[in-house]
């Protein structure tokens, strides 16, 4: 029966018209000429002939209180912070090509790195387009995209994700001039990625409930039954995983298992991530928790009265320093441009930004932390090679065996 023919006809036609119109309305990013007056395209990468055009209005955002990076969309900081040095450095290796855009896949949130990427655009004249997402999801996306990946740079929240991409052969070796800026502790031994900022593991504690003198010097101290039910952890969190991997590398499989089993016997409270742990410590729901150093600073920026402080253990995995870092994706069409970005992130301005705005550790010599942050040099960190942290499968298995996951 043809009775229903027009039903479908109309429906499909409507769907197709709407789909096509929608598709045309928003150009896809594979061609570089984005229609500059589409409101829906939140960022407008480069019209090909407009070198002089300032980063567009969506990119330009007033960001007066520049010490916190809260304004999510601040792509350009209105008043350039000490921009003088930028002009010289930008001329060095790459002349920005007017019609080229650097595509960054960022596993780091826009709140954290958006402002410094905007600063990079302003200082170098290189346009960027950034896809923000979860660190693992971004790495997985690059893997799935295969040889059609539009990504030039992968900016990750931890060494493990960079290692996973490198293992798949998806990152190019970086130039020695970039690698050498960072201590070999914080970069790939096979040169495919480099750390940009440091993230220390710490113990957070509620200052009203715990006296600092009670806190053990070593993560092993938390196996004491007096911590029963008072510990928070996030076994499914990437940073925690890296910590366990470090523990396995440093002390061996059996000892790592012993520690995990010991903590399990203390009935740790399980969280989905670091921020909820810090919040729960603040509420007094738990007394201590294993987190990264900067969460407490970030949360306290909004809520200064939060009774939480950082505590560093000494020379064990509990105070290891992981990195957020970047690598150049093998499908890039302009390696020089991609490397220019990474290089910029290792210059003083960017390093200072990370120290003061995201409360992370600068990795380039000569830039210091500020405020209440414990200087990196005072942390008794364990001797660990971040490249050895790529055995996440083993960590996963271990956590499953002890039923933490």
């Amino acid at each position, binding site marked *: 029966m043809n009775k*229903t023919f027009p*039903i479908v006809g109309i429906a499909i036609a409507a769907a197709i018209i709407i789909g096509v119109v929608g598709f045309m309305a928003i150009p896809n990013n594979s061609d570089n000429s984005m229609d500059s007056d589409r409101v829906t395209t939140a960022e407008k990468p480069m019209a090909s002939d407009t070198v002089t055009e300032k980063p567009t209005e969506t990119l330009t*955002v*007033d960001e007066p209180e520049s010490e916190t990076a809260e304004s999510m*969309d*601040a792509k350009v900081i209105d008043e350039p912070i000490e921009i003088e040095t930028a002009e010289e450095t930008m001329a060095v290796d790459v002349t920005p090509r007017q019609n080229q855009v650097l595509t960054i896949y960022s596993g780091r*949130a826009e709140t954290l790195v958006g402002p410094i990427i905007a600063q990079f655009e302003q200082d170098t004249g290189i346009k960027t387009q950034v896809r923000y997402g979860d660190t693992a*999801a971004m790495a997985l996306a690059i893997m799935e*995209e295969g040889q059609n*990946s539009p990504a030039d740079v992968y900016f990750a929240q931890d060494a493990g994700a960079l290692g996973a991409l490198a293992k798949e052969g998806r990152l190019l070796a970086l130039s020695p001039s970039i690698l050498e800026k960072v201590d070999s502790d914080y970069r790939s031994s096979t040169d495919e990625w480099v750390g940009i900022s440091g993230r220390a593991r710490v113990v957070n504690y509620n200052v009203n409930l715990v006296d600092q003198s009670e806190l053990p010097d070593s993560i092993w101290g938390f196996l004491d039954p007096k911590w029963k039910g008072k510990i928070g952890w996030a076994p499914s969190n990437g940073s925690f995983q890296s910590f366990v991997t470090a523990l396995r590398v440093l002390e061996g499989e059996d000892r790592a298992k012993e520690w995990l089993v010991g903590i399990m016997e203390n009935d740790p409270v399980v969280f989905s991530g670091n921020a909820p742990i810090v919040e729960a410590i603040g509420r007094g729901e738990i007394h201590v928790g294993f987190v990264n150093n900067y969460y407490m600073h970030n949360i306290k920026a909004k809520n200064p009265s939060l009774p939480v402080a950082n505590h560093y253990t000494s020379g064990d995995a509990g105070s290891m320093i992981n990195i957020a870092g970047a690598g150049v994706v093998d499908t890039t069409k302009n390696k020089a441009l991609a490397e220019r970005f990474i290089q910029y992130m290792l210059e003083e301005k960017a390093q200072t930004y990370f120290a003061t705005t995201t409360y992370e550790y600068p990795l380039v010599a000569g830039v210091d932390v500020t405020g209440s942050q414990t200087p990196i040099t005072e942390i008794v960190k364990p001797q660990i090679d971040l490249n050895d942290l790529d055995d996440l499968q083993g960590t996963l298995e271990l956590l499953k065996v002890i039923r933490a996951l």
Partner: protein
Amino acid sequence: MNLLTSNSKLSNPLTHTSFPLVIAGIIIALSMLVPLAYLVARASDAGPRITNILISSRTLEVFANSTVLVLVVTALSAVIAVIAAFLTVKTDLPGKKFWSVILTLPLAVPSFVGSFALIATFAPKGSALQNLLAPLGIDVLPPIYGWPGVILALTLFSYPYVFLTTRSSLRGMDPAIEEVSRSLGYNIRSTLRHVTLPHLYPSIAAGSLLVAFYALSDFGTPGLMRFDSFTRMIYVEYQLGFDRSSAAVLSLLLVTLVAVILFFEHRVRSKASYYSLGPGTKRQPVLLKLGRWKGVALVFCGVIATLALFIPIGVMFYWFFQGVAVGESYPNMGIITFNTVYVAALATLVIVAFALPMALLVVRFPRKSTSVLERISYIGFAMPGIVVALSLVSFGANHLPMFYQSMGMLVFAYMVLFIPLSIGAIRSSLLQINPRVEEAARSLGLGQGRTLLTVTIPMAKTGLLAGAALVILTIMKELPSTLLLSPIGFKTLATQVWTGAESASFPYAAASALVLVAISAISVTIILSQERNASRR
């Protein structure tokens, strides 16, 4: 009391399935097979590890967890939703329009925001409730984490799936059917039980399937509530091992569970017809007087709305004002809001346009093949968002590079994920239309297209609108595929909520979430006001 089923034999004069309808159905089904094909391909990479993954005691335990969770959440949601739908359609409950919107809106609360709010309110120590009770000497509340929390949160944020579909059926129902029952001497209660409720089965079932699959595929809630669900296990594989093949094996196991649920739902799905044989004139149905139950009814609606909507909004406002206090700025909210509305509205139009032929196919040509086509459409919705998103990344980048990360691709992703939301609602509405009415229109010389436009669509309007409401509310808060497949730099309120939460910048997350709920409220109000016009027709 068998007013419904008497005519099932003579109902279908159409013996041949219309070819274009089948084409539409097949297009939809093929789209759904993209994630499935991807999973099979990825899972086969796992090789001999497959058996280890499948038979590990942990897999079995989590499988059992998820199954029980789905059953409990679905049952609870159905009870809440059916009661709420009755109250807002069939009774003289004060402020019915208000409650209709308010009770739909929990759907607009992203699950991790809602769960976070529940934790902030009911956590054992230091939560709002505990602080309130502290003067009474209550230092610790019973833990919300685990089973109680995950059931509470999933039920509260997914019952509107049943609420909306049931409401639309109640409104689309011919009041004559109930009147006949009453005139035959049955009292209100017995009419409700034996006439009205059976009439609603298709829409309750359609909504319940959505709740079940939402509970299976959600990640935010189990994560925050510290509950081991299947989806959480899949995330862990991705997150930690970057192990796409293990994740794919687990996802296929999830698809199996989905298939089993669909099979049983189909078995119990009634073959009855749900339309009246009469001319089908619509009148305003007589409203039940609640009398002294009015207070109870208001308390019921109030409690649900408080837990599922007002508490999350309250917590978000609290965070928001904390941000205001430290001088946080909220730039670009206008553009981001526009983006969100634009893409959600566009995708909703496309989805409804495809869902209508699919629903027509299933209702007017009920065959095994058509119902299989329809069932396949549930695959996307039942799978964790990240799985579907990655499958479309793989498909898009490698097979449709021109479309990859374009607006078209994003709309396609939304269709793969959310089309069953709309099909189910439209289907239950179409079941209430006597095909004889369409035939009469045709026999009076109306063309096929005009029959659709002037007879079928107006009569199915409540279902179309309910379907549209479900889709638009769900799209606006969707995250994984928006992050991975949108045009680069395209931001929506949901991605901004995520960005804020990810960097522990809760005031920003809260601001975006509040705007999200606000524009959802506007959308629902508009859609439900259309519904009123529909029944005045």
